[in-house]
């Protein structure tokens, strides 16, 4: 098909003019591997899912007549006799940001063709992600043992439990799926599966992982800090 043939010079026009050409000219709109375009579209739809969860949480919290539980105290830890509010959540945040950093570097080394570093960095990302899920499991068991349920909790508005389990549970599911995804990609990079078709797949996996980190930024701000 001739219409599908594109030379890279077609995409050199920058700005609004280039955007109009992308959509109006007889060519592929997104100059990237199809997997990358599809990942972006998926992430956009996932953005809407998490936005709806967080908006639902905002709605029940604003409409609750009982006081919202004191989140900072609920998630506090006492280590060696020192009381630290929200400590576990802070550690989880740092772990996830670090995993995003290692993933960004993995993408970079993949395009440079440094397979050894790429595998090590993706593996580090997956390990950090797995430890995040571990800490979340600890947090869930702690809250459940303290009597938090989707329909009740000892401290205040009963909607707290429903929002907490729904939002952090769905995010944790994304992290878990991401760990498996990264493990598969790391194995394939190590085997040299992408030597011929190129390393765009590492970038696509990276997009997913950064998105998981991005969602946590919003959960951290709205659920834990607000």
């Amino acid at each position: 098909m001739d219409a599908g043939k594109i030379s890279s010079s077609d995409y050199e026009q920058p700005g609004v003019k280039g955007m109009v050409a992308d959509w109006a000219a007889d060519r592929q709109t997104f100059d990237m591997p199809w997997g990358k375009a599809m990942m972006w579209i998926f992430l956009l739809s996932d953005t809407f899912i998490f936005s709806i969860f967080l908006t639902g949480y905002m709605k029940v919290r604003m409409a609750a007549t009982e006081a919202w539980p004191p989140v900072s105290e609920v998630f506090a830890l006492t280590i060696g006799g020192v009381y630290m509010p929200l400590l576990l959540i802070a550690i989880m945040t740092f772990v996830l940001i670090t995993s995003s950093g290692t993933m960004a570097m993995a993408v970079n080394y993949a395009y440079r063709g440094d397979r050894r570093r790429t595998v090590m960095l993706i593996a580090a990302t997956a390990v950090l992600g797995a430890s995040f899920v571990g800490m979340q499991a600890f947090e869930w068991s702690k809250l459940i043992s303290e009597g938090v349920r989707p329909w009740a909790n000892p401290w205040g508005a009963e909607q707290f439990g429903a929002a907490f389990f729904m939002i952090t549970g769905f995010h944790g599911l994304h992290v878990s799926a991401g760990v498996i995804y990264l493990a598969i990609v790391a194995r394939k990079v190590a085997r040299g599966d992408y030597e011929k078709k190129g390393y765009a797949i590492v970038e696509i996996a990276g997009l997913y992982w950064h998105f998981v980190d991005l969602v946590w930024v919003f959960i951290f701000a709205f659920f834990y800090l607000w």
Partner: protein
Amino acid sequence: MTSDTGQQHPIGIYLKIWLLLFVLSFFSYLVDYFHLEGMLRWSLILTFMFLKAGLIIAIFMHLMWERLSLQYVLLLPLLAIVALVALMAIEADHTFLMRMQFLAT
């Protein structure tokens, strides 16, 4: 920056952004640690949140180096979310007032 080579930037930029995200996260933790309240608390939380989100999207996800076509496809639909949040805030306010009027004991 076409599909042949993929995104390629010096490694230092990721380390710098990483450090910046650490610092911003630490600041948002301090907001809670020092028990800041009211408008100051909310504005600081939102500022740090949007800065972090912006850095992740722009640098780690490379969106600032992508073509305008993709940037608009991803960012314009977010206006629908803003509209949803506004509508639900109005509705929540209404629900709260109704509950206070008819259900409060």
